[in-house]
């Protein structure tokens, strides 16, 4: 039966080449774009190395110090007394007037070291610097490298794929050893090769020489916790920054909650800590706020440029999903329309099939199957196109912050999308076909 459906579906596609072309063009183009969006979404939000545990991560990129200003508002009431006299009464209210003195930014190592180590529901955590740029020199050539200073836990929180060598350990961090982990891109740029032979070689960064201990694969996305070209023990950072006792400095923290559901608990503990934090007496500010959030919170807040992650997600994703839905709906409606119009064309065939024993379910399955064949062919073309575009985009680093991925997972999503598209666009026309009245159609 399936073989018969398949052969018939292919014959039907051959019968109307123009219709087939229009349908396939729409389907393959739509699915190609969807594939690229899925691929980008997976690269940005998927649980890919080195963020396999992204669902458990809570990011703490910055701290805000602030002082709110208050106004006192007086209200005077005039009360007419019965004896002809007037009594005056007044109330006063003290409330924030909306003005604020504040300072936002990453934190100092001393703040993180003193206060951010003892939370419950946290399996692991890492402190790392914000990125900075370091000039490296080789044979009179200057290479500018995106640099992160991290602790040893960084390599357990973020599971980078090591192509050669190993991460540096806690001893290296404690003893401020001049060791370095580099990405394959940095290895290519600096040493001209990515091989085990690079391990143990030295890189000259500023006045210092660092020994390469590991080469990692460049992550799919340039998240500001993993986007470095080189990674150094945080104790090798400028000593003034390391010893800074202010609240703010160049560091951030990432916590690995014991489960995805415990991220809220970690966020609440951070919020509680901030609310109850007593500012040093010499501070210009009265209170602090910690902006902790999930990867999605951080992405939305950074994109919308606000500190309120919930509001940012609404502002970002409602328009984004509406656009995506619209983008999907248009070709879908078009395909449904094309299919429905073809019902009339094939009425006689359906009636003959029913006359000779096909029941409505047979007809329904046949036409859904035909539509799935069409969408799968379109999907395959879309896949090939998407694959070519992904290769081109990645080879030329066209998007900048993201390398598009082409994994089994993305492929599985894609098959699901095709199935959904095929079913959605096929069910209504197939249902109408299955209801064909034999007598009327054969008249």
């Amino acid at each position, binding site marked *: 039966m399936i073989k018969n459906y398949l052969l018939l579906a292919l014959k039907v596609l051959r*019968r109307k080449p123009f219709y087939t072309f229009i349908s396939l063009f729409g389907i393959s183009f739509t699915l190609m774009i969807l594939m690229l969006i899925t691929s980008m979404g997976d690269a940005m939000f998927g649980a890919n190395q080195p963020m396999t545990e992204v669902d458990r991560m809570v990011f703490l990129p910055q701290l805000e110090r602030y002082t709110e200003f208050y106004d006192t508002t007086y209200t005077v009431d005039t009360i007419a007394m019965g004896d002809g006299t007037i009594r005056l009464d007044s109330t006063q209210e003290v409330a924030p007037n909306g003005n604020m003195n504040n300072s936002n930014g990453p934190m100092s190592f001393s703040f993180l070291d003193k206060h951010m180590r003892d939370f419950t529901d946290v399996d692991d955590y890492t402190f790392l610097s914000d990125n900075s740029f370091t000039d490296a020199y080789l044979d009179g050539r200057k290479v500018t490298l995106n640099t992160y200073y991290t602790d040893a836990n960084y390599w357990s929180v973020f599971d980078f794929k090591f192509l050669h060598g190993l991460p540096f350990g806690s001893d290296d961090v404690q003893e401020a050893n001049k060791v370095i982990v580099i990405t394959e891109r940095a290895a290519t740029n600096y040493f001209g090769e990515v091989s085990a032979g690079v391990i143990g070689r030295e890189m000259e960064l500023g006045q210092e020489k660092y020994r390469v201990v590991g080469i990692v694969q460049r992550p799919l996305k340039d998240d500001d916790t993993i986007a470095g070209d080189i990674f150094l023990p945080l104790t090798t950072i400028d000593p003034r920054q390391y010893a800074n006792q202010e609240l703010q400095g160049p560091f951030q923290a990432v916590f690995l909650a014991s489960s995805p559901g415990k991220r809220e608990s970690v966020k609440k503990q951070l919020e509680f800590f901030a609310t109850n934090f007593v500012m040093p007496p010499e501070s210009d500010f009265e209170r602090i706020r910690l902006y902790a959030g999930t990867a999605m919170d951080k992405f939305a807040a950074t994109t919308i440029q606000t500190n309120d992650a919930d509001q940012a997600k609404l502002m970002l994703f409602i328009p984004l999903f509406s656009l995506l839905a619209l983008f999907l709906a248009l070709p879908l409606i078009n395909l449904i329309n094309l299919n429905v119009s073809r019902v009339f064309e094939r009425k006689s065939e359906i*009636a*003959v099939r*029913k006359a000779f024993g096909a*029941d*409505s379910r047979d007809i329904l399955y046949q036409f859904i199957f035909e539509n799935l064949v069409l969408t799968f062919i379109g999907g395959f073309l879309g896949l090939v196109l998407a694959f070519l575009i992904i290769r081109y985009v990645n080879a030329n680093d066209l998007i900048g912050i993201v390398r598009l991925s082409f994994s089994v997972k993305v492929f599985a999503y894609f098959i699901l999308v095709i199935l959904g598209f095929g079913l959605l666009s096929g069910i209504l026309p197939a249902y109408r076909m299955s209801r064909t009245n034999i007598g009327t159609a054969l008249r």
Partner: protein
Amino acid sequence: MIELTNISKSYRTDTIETLALQRMNLSVPDGEFLSIMGPSGCGKSTLLNIMGLIDEPSEGRVVLAGKEVTDYNGSQTARFRNEQLGFIFQSFHLINDLSVVDNVELPLLYRRVGGKERRRLALEALERVGLSNRATHFPNQLSGGQKQRVAIARAIVGKPNLILADEPTGNLDSHMGGEIMDILTRLNQELGTTIVMVTHDERMAKKTHRLVRLSDGERVS
């Protein structure tokens, strides 16, 4: 055996009701070759459609092959049509995308017969109508008479008890029409298949066992 008792059929629109058949009684014994004649719009095709479970009567009782089929649901009628009935249409209604042999296999497909057996039975049916050498052709490559022979092969491949033919020679010249009638007569004689045929052609009707005439939805002879 076909038993139609007090069959009426009316078609209703918002403003008008058309009576296509009025209290029709008809009995067709097994193995009979019956023809139905009458002017256009007299209810011949409606009667054939009711016998073929393609249309439902507004009133009355239909018994086919000893079974009361009046209240059958969609899948029951589909199965009954598949196992007991064969149809031949005036304009052939072959599926142009399928080869001759694939067209003939169609009823067996819905009987879930395996591929090899389907092919064997379809070729046997084509042999019977003298078209086994056209098995891999497509309908558009055939003449009208050949198309109707394919349609007959399709109607008999499932070995139905009853063949319902709606003006099978209507679109053919007299020579081709004669050939088709010969095949139907032979099927009736050799296989004992009951055949009910609607026709406008007296000469064709004379070749059948019995003629029933309709006029304005009523049986007149």
